[in-house]
């Protein structure tokens, strides 16, 4: 009997040698005459265990990890094919506490299925949501999404159903679905993991969006730094087309819909939806003023749904299980689950999908296991480079759009980056301005000149030059950037700066470093 062995193809696993491990397993099995089949699955999201090798046994899938090439022979000696014991043996995968305590909806199939097998996808509930959607009126699909409480997972948290309704109501044709896969926030990787581990979910979600609003073409705007995701998506799209799930008649229905993947060129700003649209049209990635909203006048001036990967990839489970089932999860106005990406100075980094409401401290302690360095946590940046630095006193803030905002932060794309007590928040504040200066599209004045001046002003503060006056100037600059910038890059850069100033003022008032001479 053939034994199935799962070795992830996810870029995080590949970066720690998953390909070599898979090759060695195949060679080892061949040498021993063992009958195995290697499945290159997505990641289960437990990054510190990669490459995480799973074996399908009579008791279900059991995990070993992190497996290196040198471990393979020993694992075969230990009877890996039957789930034999080893120091790397982790037991049944889904019983690993880190995993077992999650509530996986969006990522339910990620790491489980063969990402490029449409049969596998369907065997795990794939395309059931679409089948249901195809039996519904457009308005009903949109209503279902609205009722689910799904909000934009890219960071803005705008209700997805409302956006779809706007596009549905727009009279102009054609309409477009644009998937924002320009995942650029520091410490985030959920989009990539999903596209590499369960691409059909995204394809199905985009197809549903197309059916719901009457769009016939979808574009995935993918950052060029994701070559594996690019290959996987292209293959999956071809497969979906071959199986009639994309093309002139989606799943045999009257709806035409197809998808193209377009690559970005390395600009963070092109993750902003209007700059993304400019880039998609072949122009410089400059911010467009709003109004008009992209939902009214988006790609090529036509009504366009622009949604993040996770928003679109969550739609299938909503349609499959119903809006009510989805909104059961979460708290307040944040319904459903949030795929949190835990990173930085943390023992167990990875993807943790949980209902809204979990606190930062729970994430760091119960899942992350504290800092990797073993030193105390001093600051946690939530929501990417434009998110606030939270001190220990705020770590009991629950993950919830409103609660994080009340703490002057933002949830963003769900990235959580942990710092220990060696971090200097003045240099982190400087980094925020420097990041903005580096990534600014250059259109609006507050961002184009302001960010550069922000770096200079923080440098003067740190150097002890007229600190009081420069702190006041920095405050004015933060105010200007917040209120006058054209888009969120300039508008939100003050958040990390201000949080650093507010919670870690001591880092800005240290004695100026004395210049050392040779």
């Amino acid at each position, binding site marked *: 009997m053939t034994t199935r062995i799962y070795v992830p193809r996810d870029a995080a696993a590949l970066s720690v040698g998953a390909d070599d491990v898979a090759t060695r397993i195949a060679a080892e099995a061949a040498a021993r005459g063992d009958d195995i089949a290697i499945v290159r699955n997505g990641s289960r999201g437990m990054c510190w265990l990669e490459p995480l090798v799973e074996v399908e046994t009579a008791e279900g899938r059991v995990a070993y990890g992190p497996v290196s090439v040198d471990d393979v022979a020993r694992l075969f000696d230990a009877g890996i094919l039957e789930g034999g014991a080893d120091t790397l043996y982790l037991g049944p995968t889904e019983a690993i506490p880190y995993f077992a305590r999650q509530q996986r909806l969006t990522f339910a199939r990620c790491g489980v299925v063969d990402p490029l097998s449409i049969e596998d996808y369907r065997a795990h509930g794939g395309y059931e949501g679409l089948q249901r959607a195809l039996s519904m009126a457009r308005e009903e699909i949109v209503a279902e999404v609205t009722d689910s409480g799904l909000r934009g997972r890219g960071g803005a948290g705008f209700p997805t159903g409302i956006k779809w309704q706007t596009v549905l109501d727009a009279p102009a044709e054609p309409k477009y679905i644009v998937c924002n896969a320009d995942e650029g926030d520091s410490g985030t990787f959920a989009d990539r993991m999903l596209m590499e581990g369960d691409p059909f979910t995204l394809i199905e979600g985009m197809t549903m969006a197309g059916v719901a609003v009457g769009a016939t073409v979808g574009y995935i705007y993918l950052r060029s730094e994701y070559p594996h995701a690019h290959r996987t998506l292209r293959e999956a799209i071809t497969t979906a087309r071959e199986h009639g799930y994309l093309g002139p008649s989606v799943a045999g229905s009257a709806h035409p819909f197809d998808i193209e993947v377009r690559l970005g060129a390395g600009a963070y700003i092109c993750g902003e939806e209007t700059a993304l649209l400019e880039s998609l049209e072949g122009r410089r990635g400059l911010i467009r003023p709003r109004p008009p909203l992209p939902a009214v006048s988006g790609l090529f001036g036509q009504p366009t749904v622009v949604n993040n990967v996770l928003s679109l990839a969550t739609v299938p489970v909503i349609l499959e299980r119903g809006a009510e089932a989805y909104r059961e999860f979460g708290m307040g106005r944040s319904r459903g689950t949030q795929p949190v990406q835990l990173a930085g100075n943390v023992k167990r980094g990875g993807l943790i999908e949980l209902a809204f409401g979990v606190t930062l401290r729970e994430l760091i302690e119960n899942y992350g296991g504290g800092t990797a360095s073993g030193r105390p946590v001093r600051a946690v940046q939530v929501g990417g480079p434009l998110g606030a630095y939270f001190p220990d006193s705020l770590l009991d803030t629950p993950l919830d759009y409103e609660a994080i905002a009340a703490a002057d932060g933002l949830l963003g794309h769900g990235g959580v980056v942990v710092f220990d007590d060696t971090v200097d928040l003045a240099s982190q504040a400087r980094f925020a301005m420097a990041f903005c200066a580096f*990534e600014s599209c250059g259109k609006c*004045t507050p961002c*184009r000149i302001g*960010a*550069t*001046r922000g770096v200079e002003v923080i440098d003067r503060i740190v150097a002890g030059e007229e600190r009081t006056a420069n702190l006041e100037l920095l405050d004015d600059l933060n105010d200007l950037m917040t*209120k*006058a910038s054209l888009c969120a890059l300039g508008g939100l850069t003050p958040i990390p700066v201000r949080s650093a100033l507010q919670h870690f003022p001591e880092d800005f008032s240290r004695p100026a470093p004395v210049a050392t001479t040779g």
Partner: protein
Amino acid sequence: MTLIREADLGTPAIKSSVLLTVEVDGKTVMVPEGTSVMRAAALTGVTVPKLCASDNLEPFGSCRLCLVEIEGRRGTPASCTTPVEEGMRVTTQTPDLASLRRGVMELYISDHPLDCLTCPANGDCELQDMAGAVGLREVRYGYDGANHLDAPVDDSNPYFDFDPSKCIVCSRCVRACDEVQGTFALNIMGRGFDSTVSAGGTAFVDSECVSCGACVQACPTSTLIEKSVVEQGQPEHSVVTTCAYCGVGCAFKAEMRGNEVIRMMPFKDGKANHGHSCVKGRFAWGYATHSERILSPMIRERITDPWREVSWEEAIGYAASEFKRLQAQYGRDAVGGITSSRCTNEETFLVQKLVRAGFGNNNVDTCARVCHSPTGYGLSATLGTSAGTQDFDSVEQADVVMVIGANPTDAHPVFASQLKRRLRGGARLIVIDPRRIDLVKMPHVQADYHLPLLPGTNVAVINALAHVVVTEGLVDEPYVAERCEPEAFERWRAFIAEERNSPEAVEGATGVPAADLRAAARLYATGGNAAIYYGLGVTEHSQGSTMVMGMANLAMATGNLGRPGVGVNPLRGQNNVQGSCDMGSFPHEFSGYRHVSNDGVRTMFEEAWDVGLETEPGLRIPNMFDAALDGTFKGMYIQGEDLVQSDPNTKHVTAALAAMECVVVHDLFLNETATYAHVFLPGSSFLEKDGTFTNAERRISRVRKAIPPKAGLADWEATMALSNALGYPMTYEHPSEIMDEIARLTPTFAGVSYEKLDRLGSIQWPCNDAAPEGTPVMHEHGFVRGQGLFMVTEYVPTDERTNDRFPLLLTTGRILTQYNVGAQTRRTPNVVWHGEDLLEIHPWDAENRGINDGDLVVVNSRTGETALRAKVSERMQPGVVYTTFHHPDTSANVVTTEFADWATDCPEYKVTAVQVSRTRQRSAWQTEYAATREATTRIAVPAETQP
């Protein structure tokens, strides 16, 4: 007199029938739906600070100075990008807004040189104004931070400098290049703080920039600024006038300091140009003060004598006595005159009046003879009016545009920008031209069909287009039935449906694939509003008039006449070619296109002018030459035209002129014709006189005197003096009196007066009791002639054919930076771009002849030969070569023939069979002519200054 500063309402006007009420700082205003808050505020008189917004550009939202507060809305939205909503209440001034605006200005100035006092834009700088408006008092960032102050100046363009150290990256220049001009030569390089304006990464002069000036005009600082302002300082008063180059007729403000022109700025209220310009009108006006201008009258008895400077009285007296002598000696018809399409309507009217009343014959003609005379004939025959049917703005409502034998991006650049904007907005394009002109494919414009016909086969092509319309059931039958003469239509329909007019039948002769021709015809007939724009590629053929009628037939058959968005539109070459024709410059017509044999009309003129008038048409230009060679035509008064350089078969022309006894040239320069002149009267440039020009859309616009005539007399005054000396009295005090006379004597001008022109800005004729404010679109309620008349347009190939000796077809034209014979533009820095005429030749034809790019080649025709350098270009089709006629030392017209339009004698410039070969020297004619020119343009040094 003050400097006119036009209001800038920040964002473009929006057309909407829905009006919304908005309150700005407590003032209420109603604006069309879609209007920005900024514009609404401006309309209430509230000025919101701004730097990146301008009302000729789409809102951009980058500077962030125009933030406002709106009741019920979060934050501080930018007023330029926020459309008004019903009942919106806007506040533009609060302490918070003031603080934000100061913050923005503080950032700007932290990266800006503090050299206002020595900056050329001092006093005309929006950045400076805004710093004042927001109360900027300090820059707390200091000036030691990152900056662009060391960015080097690009002074490569002859007319303007680019100093990036002054740049605030508002992108107005880039957007003006894209949106207004449509050239897309500028962009922003780099991102964030490193964002800089760039002409595609090269120096401006080497870039795709066409020097239209839109970017310079758009710049709110001195980053892009006219060299003349850098060198001379700011102007202090403006005179609104009309450009003297092409037939678009752009309105300009001559911005002056005293009697010195500092710069020409396109005038926003100009209805032909809406504030846009091209390199010629905007920058190439320096010829007016060029050192080669002749400022004193001169005479000589023989053309081999040196010129002798004399007083006006002596020159005029000598000319008059000579004309009188010639008429006494050789008969009344032995003299004549040429009016100029570059002079004003009033001046033109006076010259023809001088000929008819003063000389007592009808020997008057004009340079329109050699360009658009077939337009007058063809449109008059079919529709009833010798003029284009639309205003330029009509193109904004066109769905299909067919450009035939015209190259608007070079020859009519400001209209081309308007056309390109419409094409970018979705209109479809058909180009019928032997050459692959820029419109066929350029940034964001691509023709749906390019029909690259062989020169000389226009009529075959237009007939084939009509054949498709007739035989595929695409005729607008109700339109034709209602508006057109039925018998003529049936006759035409039967003729055009004949198989020999089918695309397939003419494919061989025209070289146009039948399938493309059919597709183009269907598009024209069924694509919505279809408009034809054409140029001299239509008229300058042996069947020029036939082709004009063919286009009118096609437009009538498809119902594309008589409303905005359609029409048959000549793109006129010269500033006043429409006007010179309107003014009675042709030997057979009085003003308003009324035949001299019409007794009623003639009697009216006789009574008004108090003189008996000749009843028969006089000589056309080519007839005058022939008569001169026959010895019966002996004297000419030529105002503002260079017959030698512009008329075909130069050797014939020079021989005729040499045979005359009194040639009076009235011009700015000793042009090529002056080589053969006996009297030279110094002309006045358009800056030096009052008058009117009439552009291609029949728009009469004022020319206003910005400086006194440099030679003492405006051209109309000189003509008047000559008439008085001839014994026919003229006593006008001002050109407005001449216009009053024109209006009295010309029904289509009956309502025109200077007072009304000043009030309305400009007027499109007909202007009379029926249309007191003029007529933008003709034939709206039926054709002027009554019923539209379909004319049978048989294709007759030209007699000018290729053969073994002359296997190539030469066609001629002009390019962007030069204008006609180049008398003006050659005397400006425009020669940087086009310093000599080049022969464009397809690589295959070049290779067959061993010709490389830049080689000197000789062009031979049956008429003559000239040498010039070759430019190997795939814009040409194999078998066709092209050159311009801007430079007298090339004189393309040495080669062109005397074949001409059957109806109007308009020369067939566009088809000459030639051979091209490499050469090492100038042609014999060029050498000989240069020697003649040298010998005949000497000016005697006045005695008292001799040593």
